[in-house]
């Protein structure tokens, strides 16, 4: 994984001291709260309902053991002993004091981490496929590209004060696991007819209150032109993006209002005129950075593994875990092991300091010291021998991280909701917990198969409900929490936004409604192989509507 050189190190250190000074100037009155706010946001610091929240960047989701241990230490020393993995491959602390933050940033800098641009109206930390360097369907590891963009966008003098936040995601695989079409800029590494590797550039995707799927502005961009082309896109956006209304300020609105063709024409015109000084940079830097992402030395081993097969036969819990939480690795005899940070009945994505240390130890012992954070709020040990899975499983059981539910119905994404967030209009975490309890039986989960539920506690859609197979959006109606259910969302290659099933329902009716939807699916599917989206596409929304109606009546009757 990427290792800082003296320059990266210096910028992160100086940034810590800069923030220390900014806090002092806020406290002595030199900076007003309005002036200070964007500065703290650009260091990942939010003021939430109960305390300050710090969002730490885990660039493109890759972490080593030393970094994970430092996150654990910070959780214990400054928070309440845990951290929260987010849908943007970050880690958030929810209970910090402002005066501690410069020291925390210093501890992060000690292990090559930071919170730079994890918030604010700037280019946010870049996300990437969590199976980068592992997946067999990969054209190229997206992380060198993501790291190049991280460096370029860090304190870029022209783009620190954009109309609104700006998110970039990169994938290098055929299956899009980074949800690039719902980002401000989505980058797909592709091969052209001549066999050269380059980028397809999508612009203007996003969720939030106006969900949109990104439009392709360039089918094939030569790799070395990336930074200059990004510069052109960002400049058009910085100049013309709306600044009169924060809800219309994202680039998706500009693309929508201008039309994709006109927007593309403006970018291309800007690009034509630009001094292309990024080309030499991209050439040299991509090569330099890529060395750091060279795959670890993995020897091919027998696959399937006899050892694992025998252990699976003997242990039903391991069998279930192995069936759902192991992802094929491109090197024979290995797997990427998904650890669910979604134990039944616990807030999705929360990990205790103790669990973080177990993860760090396991990664060190079994996965070349490397971990990945997924946008599903889980952790991956990316380079595990199949033979080692039984031993790892045992350790996970002790740590409460062996939930065999990766990609199953209880592997729910939920935003922090009204329990933590000042913007939320409804709770999300308790809803997730209630649904998990309904489907707690592992055999039932296995029978249902892959099915994603995503929950947002307000219209800003941090829980990505638009792209959940089942999406749940918590709103407030006349002083009561009210939940809208959408069906059919898919963040992958055929990006689809879910459609509303009907009127909103009460919180206590949600688990029953979800259960009824799932029962309807099980009844209508043509076999266990037919996934939820396929059934839905075949039968439409109508057969699912009574589920919602019935539950609504029950809720009304009991009210």
């Amino acid at each position, binding site marked *: 994984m990427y290792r800082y050189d003296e320059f990266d190190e210096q910028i992160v250190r100086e940034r810590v001291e*800069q923030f220390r000074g900014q806090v002092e100037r806020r406290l002595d009155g030199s900076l007003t709260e309005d*002036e200070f706010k964007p500065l703290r946001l650009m260091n990942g610091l939010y003021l939430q309902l109960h305390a300050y929240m710090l969002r730490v960047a885990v660039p493109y989701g890759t972490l080593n053991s030393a970094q994970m241990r430092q996150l654990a230490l910070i959780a214990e020393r400054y928070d309440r002993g845990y951290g929260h993995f987010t849908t943007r491959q970050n880690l958030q602390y929810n209970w910090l004091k402002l005066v501690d933050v410069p020291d925390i940033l210093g501890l992060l800098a000690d292990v090559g981490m930071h919170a730079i641009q994890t918030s604010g109206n700037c280019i946010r930390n870049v996300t990437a496929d969590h199976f980068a360097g592992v997946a067999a369907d990969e054209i190229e590891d997206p992380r060198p590209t993501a790291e190049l963009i991280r*460096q370029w966008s*860090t304190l870029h003098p022209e783009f620190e004060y954009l109309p609104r936040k700006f998110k970039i995601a990169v994938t290098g695989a055929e299956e899009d696991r980074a949800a690039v079409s719902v980002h401000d800029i989505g980058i797909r590494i592709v091969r052209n007819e001549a066999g050269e590797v380059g980028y397809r550039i999508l612009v203007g995707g996003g969720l939030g209150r106006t969900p949109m799927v990104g439009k392709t502005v360039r089918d094939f961009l030569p790799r070395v032109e990336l930074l200059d082309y990004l510069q052109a896109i960002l400049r058009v956006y910085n100049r013309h993006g709306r600044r009169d209304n924060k809800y219309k300020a994202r680039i998706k609105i500009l693309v929508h209002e201008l039309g994709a063709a006109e927007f593309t024409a403006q970018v291309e015109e800007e690009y034509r005129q630009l001094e292309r000084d990024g080309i*030499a940079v991209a050439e*040299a830097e991509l090569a330099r950075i890529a060395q750091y992402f060279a795959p670890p030395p993995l020897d091919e081993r027998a696959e399937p593994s006899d050892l694992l097969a025998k252990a699976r036969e003997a242990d039903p819990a391991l069998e279930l875990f192995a069936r759902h939480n192991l992802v094929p690795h491109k090197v024979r005899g290995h797997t990427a092991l998904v650890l669910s940070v979604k134990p039944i009945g616990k807030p999705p994505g929360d990990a205790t300091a103790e669990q973080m240390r177990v993860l760090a130890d396991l990664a060190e012992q079994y996965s070349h010291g490397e971990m990945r954070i997924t946008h599903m709020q889980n952790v991956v040990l990316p380079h595990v021998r199949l033979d080692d899975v039984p031993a790892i499983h045992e350790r996970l059981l002790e740590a409460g991280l062996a939930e065999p539910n990766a990609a199953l119905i209880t592997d729910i994404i939920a935003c922090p909701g009204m329990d933590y967030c000042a913007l939320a209009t409804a709770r999300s975490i308790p809803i997730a917990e209630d649904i998990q309890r309904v489907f707690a039986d592992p055999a039932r989960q296995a029978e249902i198969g892959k099915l994603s539920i995503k929950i947002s506690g307000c219209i800003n859609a941090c829980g990505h409900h638009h792209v959940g197979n089942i999406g749940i959006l918590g709103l407030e109606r006349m002083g009561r929490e009210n939940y809208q259910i959408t069906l059919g969302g898919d963040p992958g290659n055929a990006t689809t936004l879910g459609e509303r099933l009907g009127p909103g329902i009460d919180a206590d009716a949600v688990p029953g409604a979800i259960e009824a939807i799932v029962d309807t699916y099980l009844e209508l599917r043509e076999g266990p192989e037919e996934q939820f989206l396929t059934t839905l596409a075949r039968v439409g929304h109508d057969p699912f509507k009574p589920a919602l109606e019935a539950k609504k009546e029950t809720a009304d009757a009991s009210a």
Partner: protein
Amino acid sequence: MPLLDAKGLTTDTTELVALDELETARDGRGPGDRFGVTVPCDADGEELARQAPGAELIAIEVPKTGDGRVFSLAATLRERGFGGTIRAVGPLIPDQFAFALSCGIDQVEISEEQFARQPLDQWLAAAETITRTYVGPDGIFARRSAA
């Protein structure tokens, strides 16, 4: 109102006129007279570089601290060859000074009230806090490739 550049407080006697008066003003100028124009920050840099090639100064009005259009406008003017002085007029804060200078802005004009809260030493210190960022002629990318 206080006028700052990379070295400290400064003065500049360039006379500012509207864009459409620039040519007339320049026609009648005496020796040593300097003329510039004031423009809003949503001005088109490309057009401006064409329309005001003779201007000695372009003053860009910045309505709000967070309005980053001024950075792109200044950068565009420089790329299109504008060689005069660029001034940002409005509530920029010291923490934006380094970005402004990097984008080709030479001067920042702020209010007396703001200067009282944020005196000169804060501006000069803020401009130096980060030794170098990645982009730009003396940036980290350039340093690495020179090494």
